[in-house]
């Protein structure tokens, strides 16, 4: 019996709800632990970053204007689709990383649960972080969180699926849109996850995912004047300092997470928190007179 020749998948970028190749038409090779070529990944460029930020900005207001309930439902929908495709991700993680099958299975299951956790937060974080302030004059005074805008996310290198999701979900929950630089060494599951996003009622441009060399991509993202916050996970101190400096250009909110790291992405007490939502919001306070 003749062997069936498998069909290989082309991995591209995810920008504005579409899957374009890099504008630069460059690639880099993703190999398995034993050196076998798994796939070519798109090597994104600064122009891809530019396009992604433009999509994220366009998507931001309508996304932020959706009801919290609706954002929660969409996050939950992502979890449903991811649950259904678990085995795809397990295979992919096993092919690219040194993760064993059991560890990969755990990571994917945790990814689903984390999405559901944040789906629940979408219509609850506001009740946690809002206040009515008892000012000493006849005014009604209240404070509440508002999404900060376009968030640039640098995903962690390790736990490339769970880490990515753990960063995207809290950003999305409050109405931010994001441009994500995926794990450089293991980008494939990020792009496959983009396919899940595209099938989950997530509006185009809310999440944009760029693969490539972080050394090339991080700086244009951090220096982009239309990005409101940078959310970095990793321990490269030189990059951290560069991000913090670049942030000063337009007073970006710069979030640096050296922790969680490695296996601790699986630890709920370290890798998920409503404060991760709140850190990507602005507090707005309104005063209103009380009288007839």
């Amino acid at each position, binding site marked *: 019996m003749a062997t069936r020749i498998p069909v290989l998948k082309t991995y591209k970028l995810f920008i504005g709800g579409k899957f374009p190749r890099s504008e630069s038409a460059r690639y880099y090779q993703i190999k398995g632990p034993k050196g076998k070529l798994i796939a070519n990944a798109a090597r994104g460029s600064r122009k891809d970053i530019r396009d992604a930020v433009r999509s994220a900005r366009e998507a931001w207001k309508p996304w932020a204007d959706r009801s919290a*309930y609706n954002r929660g439902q969409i996050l939950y929908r992502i979890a449903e689709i991811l649950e259904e495709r678990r085995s795809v991700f397990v295979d992919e993680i096993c092919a690219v990383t040194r993760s064993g099958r059991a560890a990969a299975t755990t990571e994917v299951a945790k990814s689903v649960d984390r999405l*559901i956790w944040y789906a*629940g937060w979408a*219509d609850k974080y506001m009740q946690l972080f809002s206040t009515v302030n008892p000012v000493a004059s006849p005014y009604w005074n209240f404070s509440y969180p508002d999404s900060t805008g376009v968030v640039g996310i640098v995903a962690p290198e390790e736990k490339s699926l769970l880490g990515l999701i753990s960063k995207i979900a809290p950003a999305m929950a409050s109405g931010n849109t994001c441009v994500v630089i995926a794990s450089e060494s293991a980008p494939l599951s990020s792009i496959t996850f983009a396919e899940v996003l595209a099938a989950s009622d997530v509006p185009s441009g809310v999440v944009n995912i760029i693969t490539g060399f972080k050394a090339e991509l991080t700086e244009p993202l951090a220096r982009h004047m239309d990005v409101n916050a940078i959310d970095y996970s990793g321990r490269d101190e030189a990059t951290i300092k560069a991000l913090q400096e670049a942030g000063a250009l337009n007073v970006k909110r710069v979030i640096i997470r050296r922790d969680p790291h490695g296996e601790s992405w699986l630890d709920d007490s370290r890798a998920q928190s*409503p404060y991760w939502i709140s850190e990507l919001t602005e507090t707005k306070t309104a005063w209103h007179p009380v009288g007839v």
Partner: protein
Amino acid sequence: MSHSLGTCVVPMNAGVTMKRNGNGKTATARHLEIVEPRQLYFGEKWQYAPSPEKKDHVKLKKHYDLFIDGKFVPGKSGKTFPTINPATEETLAEIAYAEAADVDRAVTAARRAYDKVWRKMPGSERAKYVFRIARMIQEKARELAVLESMDGGKPIRESRDCDIPLAAAHFFYYAGWADKLDYAFPGRKARSIGVAGQVIPWNFPLLMAAWKIAPALASGNTVVLKPAETTPLTALHLAEIIQEADLPPGVVNIVTGDGTAGAAIVNHPNVDKIAFTGSTEVGKMIQRAIAGTNKRLTLELGGKSANIIFEDAPMDQAIEGIIDGIYFNQGHVCCAGSRLFVQESIAEIVERKLWDRMQNLRVGDPLDKNTDVGAINSKMQLNKICELVDAGVREGATKHQIECALPKKGYWFRPTFFTKVAQSHRIAQEEIFGPVLSVLTFRTPEEALERANNSPYGLAAGVWTDKGSKIFKIANRMRAGVIWANTYNQFDPSSPFGGYKESGFGREGGVHGLASYVELY
């Protein structure tokens, strides 16, 4: 018709111009000056053809059993009672009649499920079950809506657009809390209470079941729920969903019956918490009955809510607010805006606009997609409404009731409002729970507040004004649990609902709703 503004229907033709008012004043006047009675003509020039919602996809059974320990079982006594379609007076199904022995079985199952499974399950896993229920309600939404309208008489438009989506949303919302309780009560540790006994009314059958079950499950309690005698069907279909969602047996038990079963739940020694929605009279009985026990109690009771319209209100939206406030769900709404307070300077135009607007209320077949006002839930309720309306007429208020054809069978009441109502009239004091509005007038905000608060109830209030500071002033001063500003009858799972004073205590909805189902350490 006994409308005080006159009954003249002006036949209108294009281009007809009527006489201006005497002083020749034009429209720059702040408010309408009515020259002579003029009434819009809402006739038959273009009619809506019947548009009945299809029933063929509804799996209605002839007989329904109790849902205990994950299974449908007959009542021990074997007795049943019919549930009736109030729009046709036809029997829809026979329902098992639960008595104390059945309640005992249900409580025992709930206790066992609590101790063995539910209290030990991690919140994140509990959440998944509750999310499943939410999703399955969404999937079966249309079937549930049709059932709700058949069993309770409410228009399909409301069950389809309001009851069912909100019920799903409640499960969805509270599912998310199941693994987040630590954040809801900062500095304290929240633990579940145990077995919750829940007794719900007939006005929003599935929605009330959702309000009760969702927070109870999310916070780790198990449930024995009794739906109202006249509207058990959607709760029993919810039981099917719960079974299909594979919830561990005993986590939710649904017993159908009347006050006998309700009393058995309230008095059962193994029930740790009672949640009741219904009349103030029964609420007081329950509060008395559990005195001396360790049972926690939340009550959501009656109301006679004030809807206050100021002269600077966005007027046409206020008219809609009045309509929604009192004619939504045939007025079977605990927070119905049944006392309308209108500033004297606009009373005449508000009454006129209200009257014209009411001509478009379509009363009839609840399953017709264009019906606005459906059937009164039961014969008993219809009698109560008629009695109070008669009292209103006898006490000297002026009755305005639209003239519309009613179906020959079923329980119906035409939308009605009263003017010349005094604060002391029964129709201004007692909860009618029907499509009947009492219109009172006031002169100043202070007077409005004083009179609106002059009630033993305190469930909700509406305030209509274009002036923000006035809204906050009224909101601050009203002794009521929910204040709607420039809107009425808004509900959302994230928003707490509940009353002051004799309208009950405890809140349902939002983070506040969790407090009713946890013990804090």
